[in-house]
């Protein structure tokens, strides 16, 4: 008996004498029906099908819930709840006025840190109200941050906000400043960003209402 090319349905040979035509047609119809159902197993509104590991046999995937998205798990499609649209983030604020004479980056009396689970990139926003030493001192008052946890990076002038008193007409300079950075090259995981401070000349730099905010930027 001959068979069809794609699905192997049995058909009479060209040279065969048709002894039982009804039986042959019924057998072919049954094969077509079985194959069609295997390829189209949908039963319910919204169903979709995907190819299974068995040839010519699809698997039914029922419709997901409102808001779910089509994704892939274990090599096959599935419906899943969409990830939160707000990225992981954190902020730490210290209102108290505190000072340092350190010429290298240091914690202030109240240490200030934010721990965020990040990818390899994060947005870091620093702000503070800074009072410089006397203007003639020309101290550069810096607020930076160190990273610890999954990633280890020391505080440096690469990522910092800087405020310098250079107005000879003022007794002291005072102002709110902010700076922001996209930090790359992080090791994905739980990273702690700790604010650090210095005064370039060793004269007292004062920081108040200081904030460090970190927003995960993915990988």
């Amino acid at each position, binding site marked *: 008996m001959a068979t069809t090319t794609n699905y192997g349905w049995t058909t009479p040979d060209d040279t065969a004498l048709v002894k039982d035509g009804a039986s042959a047609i019924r057998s072919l119809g049954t094969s077509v029906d079985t194959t069609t159902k295997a390829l189209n197993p949908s039963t319910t509104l919204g169903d979709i099908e995907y190819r299974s590991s068995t040839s010519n046999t699809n698997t039914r995937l029922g419709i997901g819930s409102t808001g779910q998205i089509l994704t892939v798990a274990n090599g096959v499609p599935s419906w899943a709840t969409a990830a939160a649209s707000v990225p992981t983030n954190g902020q730490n604020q210290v209102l*108290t*006025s*505190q*000072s*340092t*004479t*350190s*010429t*290298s*980056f*240091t*914690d*202030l*009396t*109240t240490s200030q840190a934010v721990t965020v689970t990040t990818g390899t990139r994060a947005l870091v926003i620093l702000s503070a109200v800074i009072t410089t*030493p*006397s203007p003639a*001192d020309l101290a550069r008052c810096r607020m930076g941050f160190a990273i610890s946890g999954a990633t280890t990076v020391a505080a440096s002038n690469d990522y910092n906000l800087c405020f310098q008193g250079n107005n*000879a*007409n003022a*007794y*002291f300079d005072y102002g709110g400043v902010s700076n922001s950075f996209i930090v790359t090259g992080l090791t994905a995981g739980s990273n702690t960003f700790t604010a*650090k*401070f*210095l005064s370039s000349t*060793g*004269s*007292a730099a004062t920081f108040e209402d200081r904030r460090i905010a970190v927003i995960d930027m993915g990988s």
Partner: protein
Amino acid sequence: MAITSKEINLSQLSKELGNKGLISDFTDPKKKLILPAEGVELTDLELKAAIDNHVAIDDVAVKIAQRQTIADRLGLTADELKVLLG
């Protein structure tokens, strides 16, 4: 760490300690906190001794006095000097 109610000029105190970095919180004037900065080797006894010997210079008063001296030398009042300096 040291706690004091004394008048403290932190920049001056730092210099008196040999330019050692300090951190401070003067929120409560009766309990001013002073600590060594990160990586600074300074014992509590050394810090306390320096604070005991410390006589704070009022930076603002010094600046005002300097301004008056300059004004006097220029034959101006301090206010006239301030206007000229903008």
